């Protein structure tokens, strides 16, 4: 069987969410990500400019990996906005992890607004070379 070990972006829930939740959802934008897989695991990079180390949250609950962060720029007093391409004060995105991945082994780095996550595959899921004896 060729099962992909892909953290896929979860689709929005179809059940109507309470107004509060909808409002909270609307404030957040999806951070852009790159995801690469190799034999030992998956590496994910996410762009979260304006988020400080303290404002970043990476959470695994069950098989869901959730990344979120609040934009907290130091602003001068009395700043009057003129033009904005970034209008949401928050980033949020979720991924489902397949069973081969080991959430306990996730390591994270965060520098200059780029989050790097390494999600290893569980030992038993890593490919093993099987020596073929001839003779």
């Amino acid at each position: 069987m060729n099962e992909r070990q892909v953290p896929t972006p979860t689709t929005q829930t179809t059940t109507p969410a309470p107004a509060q939740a909808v409002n909270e959802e609307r404030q957040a934008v999806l951070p852009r990500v790159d995801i690469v897989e190799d034999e030992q695991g998956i590496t994910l990079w996410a762009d979260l400019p304006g988020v400080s180390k303290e404002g970043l949250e990476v959470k695994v609950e069950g098989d869901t990996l959730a990344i979120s962060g609040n934009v907290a720029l130091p602003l001068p007093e009395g700043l009057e906005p003129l033009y904005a391409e970034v209008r949401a004060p928050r980033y949020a995105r979720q991924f489902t992890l397949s069973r081969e991945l080991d959430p306990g082994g996730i390591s994270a780095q965060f520098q200059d607004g780029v989050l790097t996550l390494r999600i290893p595959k569980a030992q038993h899921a890593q490919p093993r070379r099987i020596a073929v004896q001839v003779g």
Partner: protein
Amino acid sequence: MLGWIRFPANLWDEMQRLERELDRLFTGWPVGIREVGGAPLYPAINVGRTPEALYVYCFAPGIDPAKTEITLEQGVLTIAGERGPWAAKEGQTVLANERFSGKFKRTLSLPDEVDPDQVEARYRDGVLTIRLGRKTHLMPRRIEIA
């Protein structure tokens, strides 16, 4: 740099206010001729001002400030540099490729009041902040009534 403060507690309200103000006042902000196309812009830019200065915020995660060039010429601010580009190594499978990579260049036409001798830039948490002082003789002044 003077008077750095955090975002107000109710940032969302502030953002909505910003959006309303934008729609009302600044729909005529000129768009750079290279930026008319629908490609996602990198870095994204926000602009604000105080009585003393104009602030340009470039949301540019993962850049090397030493390799980023900021120029101000004839009232046009240009931010140019490169991020990546990166390629998959052998044995890697690319599952998502959404982040910008390659050379970038953004230009902004600034109002005449900007003083080219008062420009500062700093890079923090993936945001490049450029502060451009306003010419003092153009600052709003309160006129006392005798």
